């Protein structure tokens, strides 16, 4: 999967989780930019991304995700390891 494809899939995941078809994301997008991205939604986002990409985030990784760019890099790293 290329980085662009991951951005594409993650956009869909986020549109579903936040129920907002207008969401578009970039590497610099953070929780502040998306209405409704609170701690509860964050868990749901992680869970949804795990299902979509068939991966599992480690307990510690939860706290290292500061923006969408970190998120995509981590997904990419995990997909390469599979």
């Amino acid at each position, binding site marked *: 999967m290329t980085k662009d494809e991951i951005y594409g899939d993650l956009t869909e995941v986020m549109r579903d989780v936040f129920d907002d078809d207008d969401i578009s994301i970039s590497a610099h997008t953070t929780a502040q930019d998306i209405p409704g991205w609170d701690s509860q939604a964050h868990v*749901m986002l992680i869970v949804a991304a795990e299902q979509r990409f068939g991966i599992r985030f480690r307990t510690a990784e939860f706290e290292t995700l500061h923006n969408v760019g970190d998120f995509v890099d981590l997904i990419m790293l995990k997909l390469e390891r599979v």
Partner: protein
Amino acid sequence: MLSWLPRHRDAGACLRQAQAARDEPAMLAAARALAGHSRDAQFTNRIDRLSRAARGAMPASGLTEMRLAMLSSHTVDHLAPAIRVAGLHRNLAIEVHTGEYGQFRGPLIAGDPALERFAPHMILFALDLPSLLAPMPLSAGREPVEASLAEIMDGLRQLWSLARERFGAQPAQQTFLPQAPPLLGSNEAMLPASAWACCTRLNELLRQASQQGDVLLVDPANQLPDIGGEGRLYDEVRWYQAKQLVNPLVAPAYGELVARLAAAVVGRSRKCLVLDLDNTLWGGVVGDDGVDHLRLGQGGAEGEAYLAFQRYVARLAERGIIIAICSKNDHDVARSVFDRHPEMQIAFDDIACFVANWSDKASNLRQIAQTLNIGLDSMVFVDDNPAEREIVRRELPEVAVPELPEDPAGYAQCVADSGYFESLGLTSEDLARSGDYTANNQRAAVRASTTDMDGYLQSLDMTLTAGPISSFDRLRAVQLINKSNQFNLTTRRRTAEELHPLLEDGRTIALAFRLRDRFGDNGLISVIVARPDPSWSGGELLIDTWLMSCRVLGRGVEVAALAALRSAAMQAGATALIGEYRPSGRNGMVEAHYEKLGFERVETDTPGDETFWRMSLQAGQVARHHLTLELTA
């Protein structure tokens, strides 16, 4: 996930369309429809957002209002959407109030204006064991552990009383989930202080409390594995990350458990089970195949599956659920199965309304509702035919129509998983339908009071029915003929085709035996075939086959069976019975069978190991037994 709910053809499009509608009643209607379809956690959250946006339409929607407060020692906010959505499918408008994180005692003891304003109908305590119980040294024995658990129970009882007294709310308690893995394994109870053992024991105490009527339980520990589907109930990662005790992936199933309890509390559980007949209660189509070719009962895997489903339905009837039939069939043909098929578990008298005709099922369901004077929203319709299910869902959205699996083996579990009949216990009216709810106590009493064998056999109240092998019996008889090894005098295997000419021969006596006792029907348990044989004289009948299921050994069945055989042989004009024992290497237990029954050894010059035995029909006698014998023609 939620496997009894049908899949939606295009749920996503339906949701988007409803979101765009901006018409609250239409949005709410769409949310209710989507809630009745199979859905994962994420889609459930989206349905919830849609219905919340349509809240203004709820008061006029016919949904029953229910205010639920969840007081918890951990995070439960992620469960609220799933509870509300499951409520929509159960005709409830559930409002969920979640307390401050970790606050479950304070609001009740010191009071809480927000909770008082909310005025909950039900307060659900969702607690985790680590927050209540400090770890104990493993050397602690049963007593200190029991004392600690009793203290926890006292604390819980206090919370439940406060919920009642201070808020007028029905208290409910979530069972504890084991969070720490076991230390020993299967015998963890030997280490009472282990967290796992404490959790199990505490749940036992909770079940006792529920039995005494102190509290209602939400029991994910027992109930969720069946309906959860994807993901584990407790996921450590979510616990460490977000203090979520219940995995967000299984939230829809959790929401179901809470919503069905809420439905039972406000009286919106369903009351009536409407069943199709062909391929739902038995395998085959009675109009085409005939009563005696239906697949139902012992003797075939599929027949056993239908039998088990019928037993489940019969237990639901006993529990007080109204049973109705809605089948496309000729009325008399459909009825004849109830009158004639010996394996039917549902009696015609148990059926409150029997509709078999060629009209469409939606009209028939309406008629059943009218006849029984119940609402369509009290009915659950069970039909193996996906097309009929679809039509009824479309025409009568109020009727719940579980999506049955293709295999009848899964029918009972599907109806159970759907939770439409969730109940808080049996009322005296429910029990009035049943005379044998004390059977378990009686069984224990029989064991306890019986020391001598004769007394025991007497107390079993056995009835042996003997009659010619009928077309109903044939499958099971062939199965016994080919499977029985131990209690089998001659071990002659025969296929159905090989058995057939024997049964057609008027000179052959072929008997099937069924045994009932006070604990139930054992089904067909023994087969005897006796026929004239060229090696023996005209009046003598050779017992070609005598076999019996080992399940009923030691009850004197063979003695009573001999009485039946003698009477059939005398009626046929025979003068004597010839018994044959052929050692097979596995049937040593019946080596002395004929000797014990009073036959006399006959010396023959046959070359093999077999022995032959003779009993005169004029002189010989049958020993004493404790069975009532019923002979059928």
